[in-house]
Every structure is written in structure tokens, then in C-alpha cells.
């Protein structure tokens, strides 16, 4: 893992994408997240909005943008459930912020690093989700860490395919 010094941060490339990519990719991720579990008959162990949030946060290397994107995606996901709006929002806000903050300090061109980050941030998101439900809200929520682990693995697998595809869409000078 290459850790960059402070002087090198500004020299890092900030990725830019066409406006359509910014609009369509998150929306497609949200739609597919809502539709694919039907097709997979309950084996939907993935979180496409989180994968997309992590990708753009790492690529843009801007914590504010990462935080806002995470919040937007999380709130949207919450709106599709029957739970209170904000649980996923908080979890993905933190994930977006962490991904963008790490992206400033670490060379995220390395594919392995990105996949590892994706895996870890998935587990962080699950932990925050559990913390909010059980501790902050005091709700009775049955939990299965095995499912969350499978979800983290699923996210990494999807990221392994999706990240190189999205890399091709970036605008190069």
C-alpha cells in the first residue's frame, strides 16, 4: 500500500466523468439494487449503491462530495424500505467520507487496494447500521454477521468487475 506524503496530495489525479455518468450510474445502481434481488431469489448479497459511492469517493478524492453522495444514496435506499429514513443514510455518509479521505492519502490506482477498501467499508457500513438500530434507536433487530460478510464479499466481486468498466468512462486530458 503506497502512502503518499502531504506534498503529493495535490498532484494526485482527480478523476472526472461525463455528467451522464454521474447521473446514470447511481440511478442504475439504485434501480438494480431494488430489482435484482427478485431475480436472485433472496440471494442478493450485495450493495450496489455502496459500491458506486466508494468508487466515486475514491476517484474524486473529495470528502465533501463523497459525504454528500453517500448521504444521497443511503437516504434513497432508506426511502425504498419500510424502515426509518436515515439509517442507511448515516452509514453511507460515513462510508463516503472515509473512502474520499482515504483516497486523498492512498494510491487508489491499485486495484487490490480498491477491492480491499470496498470489503472493509462494507463491513463498516454494516456495523454502523447495527449500531444505529440497536444502540441509537433501541430497536429489536435480529442480526446475522454471516450475511453481512457475504454481502461484503459480493460487493468486492462486483467492484472487481465494475471499477475497470467505470475507469474507462473517465475523461482523460
Amino acid at each position: 500500500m503506497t502512502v503518499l506524503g502531504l506534498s503529493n496530495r495535490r498532484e494526485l489525479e482527480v478523476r472526472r466523468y461525463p455528467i451522464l455518468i454521474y447521473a446514470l450510474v447511481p440511478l442504475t445502481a439504485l434501480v438494480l439494487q431494488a430489482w435484482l434481488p427478485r431475480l436472485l431469489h433472496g440471494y442478493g448479497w450485495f450493495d450496489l449503491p455502496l459500491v458506486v459511492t466508494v468508487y466515486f469517493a475514491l476517484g474524486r478524492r473529495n470528502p465533501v462530495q463523497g459525504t454528500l453522495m453517500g448521504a444521497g444514496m443511503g437516504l434513497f435506499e432508506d426511502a425504498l424500505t419500510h424502515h426509518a429514513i436515515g439509517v442507511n443514510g448515516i452509514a453511507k455518509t460515513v462510508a463516503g467520507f472515509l473512502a474520499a479521505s482515504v483516497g486523498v492519502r492512498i494510491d487508489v490506482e491499485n486495484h487490490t487496494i480498491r477491492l480491499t477498501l470496498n470489503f472493509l467499508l462494507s463491513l463498516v457500513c454494516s456495523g454502523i447500521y447495527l449500531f444505529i438500530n440497536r444502540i441509537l434507536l433501541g430497536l429489536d433487530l435480529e442480526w446475522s454477521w454471516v450475511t453481512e460478510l457475504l454481502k461484503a464479499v459480493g460487493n468486492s466481486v462486483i467492484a472487481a468487475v465494475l471499477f475497470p468498466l467505470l475507469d474507462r468512462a473517465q475523461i482523460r486530458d
Partner: protein
Amino acid sequence: MDSFFTRYRNLLVLLVLLAAQIIGLAVQVRRTDSGRSSYDIADGPGVRLIRLWANALVTPAERLIHDAKLGVGNLWTGYLDLRHVHDQNQDLQKTIDRLRLEQASMLEDAKQGQRLQALLGFQEKYIYKTVVAQAIGTSGSNQSRVFYLDKGKDAGLEPDMAVITADGIVGKVREVFPHSAQVLAINDQSSGAGVILETTRIRGILRGNAAGQPQVVGVMADPRIKPGEKVLTAGGDQIFPRGLPVGVVEKVVRDPDRDSFIDVIVKPAAYLDRLDEVLVITSTEPRFSAEQDQDVATSEALKGAEAAAIKEQQKASQIMAERLPGLTDPNAPAAGAQATGKPGEPGTASAVATPVAAPPTPKLLPAQHVDRYSPGLAPATVPASDAKPQPRQQNAAPAGQAKQAPAKTAPKPGDPAKPRRTQ
């Protein structure tokens, strides 16, 4: 000051967003009387608006994908893959006919039940009207087992309507949008349906667990509960009509929180993970719908026609039995003889043609071989010609010829009747 905001801009944005969402959560969750927290059953106007926007954005895309999938599927099944359709159609038609007859008898029972319930002042509600809807999407979260239907307020859907399939119950409508609706599945942790175990008659509340399996909770430990027992709706929750299939008991586990209680894990009758078409019960009434009444009438008509056909068939058989000489026992006493009190008098050939009011007596065919096994029947009574192996043509001789042969072996008046082998 300016430099403070600039320096900590990232962190401040994060904190503001987190604070706003935490306040939002605090508004949506409330304490119950038992001291536990729960989500508000009905969303506030602000929350509902956010859900409406999200739904308006996602549902059209989901509908488009679903329609495209259905279109391709229909193209294949409706136009290309039509093998065995004719046979299937015939099988289905037979099934419909059979079910109609069953339905007619069952609905008669149900009508009688209604009359009795009316006498007792209790009225059971029946499924009166349903709306067919397609499941087009989910929440996308394992923690929230809800799915979306392609019908909404425009189709007459309302919150708390029961959603079922032909196999069993599925869930209840939670939120209704103009053109779609959100359904809370029975395997969600926050769902609740009153159920009863068919054999043991133990009642409980059905809700989901973390693994997405429906389970009956709050049941006292009972060794009679065995895997395979059917679980039905109890009808006390004012959502699901009584007696709908829920599933079967899969296993019984100890309640982790209470010692003397158990959780009954249920294998759902409906395929909750692969739902496609569902029925939303939009109306329940203590009477049958016009469609059901029409079905009963059709079934009754079919039943009448079938009964007439059976009667006609029986009549034709009787006529055939009377007219075909081979089917009438030439040794049977004539009807006139019976009427005049002369039992045992052998009948004549002319008596065969005479219509008899009494049911035809089964004819004992002449023995083809010597009966050496019946006690008291000496082989000498059988003519020598009969003891010889008969040519095959004689067996296949016309009935008129065959009729005369048994005259040799016909019992004489006064002889006790002996059982004969009819090989």
C-alpha cells in the same frame, strides 16, 4: 473564522449531515407503552413525501425492466415454445371440470355454514373481490422484506389489504402510491399475522427472523407440535381471512429470551423469494361474489348434466342387458314364474325377451373345465364332451349358440345350487 470553516470544511459537512439525519430518525421512532422502541406505523407527511419521490424515480424503471422481461417471456411461451400446449389444455380443462364439481359441493357446505353462522349471530367474511398485481421490485435490503406492486391507488388498493397467491399468504399492503404499492412480506421482522396450527389448534403470531424465515412466536412449549403440521391464518388480525394456508412447520426452536416459550419456524406455502403475480384482497364480505355465484351455477349445471349423462348411461346399459341374450341368464327363473310363486322353474328362451321389472340376475357362464374342487360336485355330473378340451372357436361362438350348451349342465329343479367357476 473563515479559515476555521475552510480548514474543517469536510468534517463540518459530515457532522451537519449526520446531525440532520439523527434528528430525522428521532422524529420517526417512538417509544411504546412497554418501553420498547418501534417505527411509526404511519409515516409522517415529510417522510411519506421522500418515499413518494424515491418510488416515482425507481418504479418506472423497474416497470420497464419487468415489462421487457415479461414481453420476452411471453414471446417465447406464447408463440415459439408451444409444444404440448394442446395436451396441457385438455388436462387443464379436465381439472377445471373436476374443480367445478368439487367447488359446487363445497360452496353448498359454505352456504349452509353461512346460514348457521347467521343464526348464531356470527358472520365469517369471504374473499369477495381481488385485484391481480405483479411484483416489480424490492426494497433492496435484507433487513427490510418489502416488495413493490405495479398497482396502486388507481386500482383500488388501500393500506392493510391482504396479499396472497394461490399457494398461500404473502403479506399486507403497507404503503399505497398512485400507481404502485409497497407490500410488507410475512417474513419481515416487523410483520405480524395471526395464525393457527391446524392439528393442535395452537394460536400465535407470525413474523420473520433475521434469516428471512417466517416463525410463529410467543408459543408455549408443546411436544405435540411436529414438523409438517399445517399453519393457517386465524382470522383475528382483521387483515387475512380465516383458513388461508400459511405454510407448514419446519422445525421448533427454543425462544432465546424466554425459557418456557418456543419459536415455530414455518416453511411458507407461497414462494416469497420468487413472487411474480399476486392477488390483493380488496374486499371481504359475508357473502359470495357474483363471480362465485356464477361459478356455483355453472358447476351445478355441469353437475346436473353429468348426473343426467350417468343416468342415461345406466339406462342404456340396462336396455342392452335386457336385449342381449348373452347377458341374461337362461337358467334364471322367469319373472312370471317368480310372480306366480313357482321358484326354481327353469326359464325358456321366450322368457328372455320378456322385459323384466326386477334387476337382471348375473348370469353364471357355463363351466369350460371340469370342476374338481367344489365340494359335493362329482365330476361325473359333467358331460364327457365338456371334459374334453374344447376348440377355441367354441369359446368365441356367438351368444346364441353358446346359450344352448349350458342347458346340459343346468341344474335340475330341486338340485341344490352349487357355486360354479366362471373361467
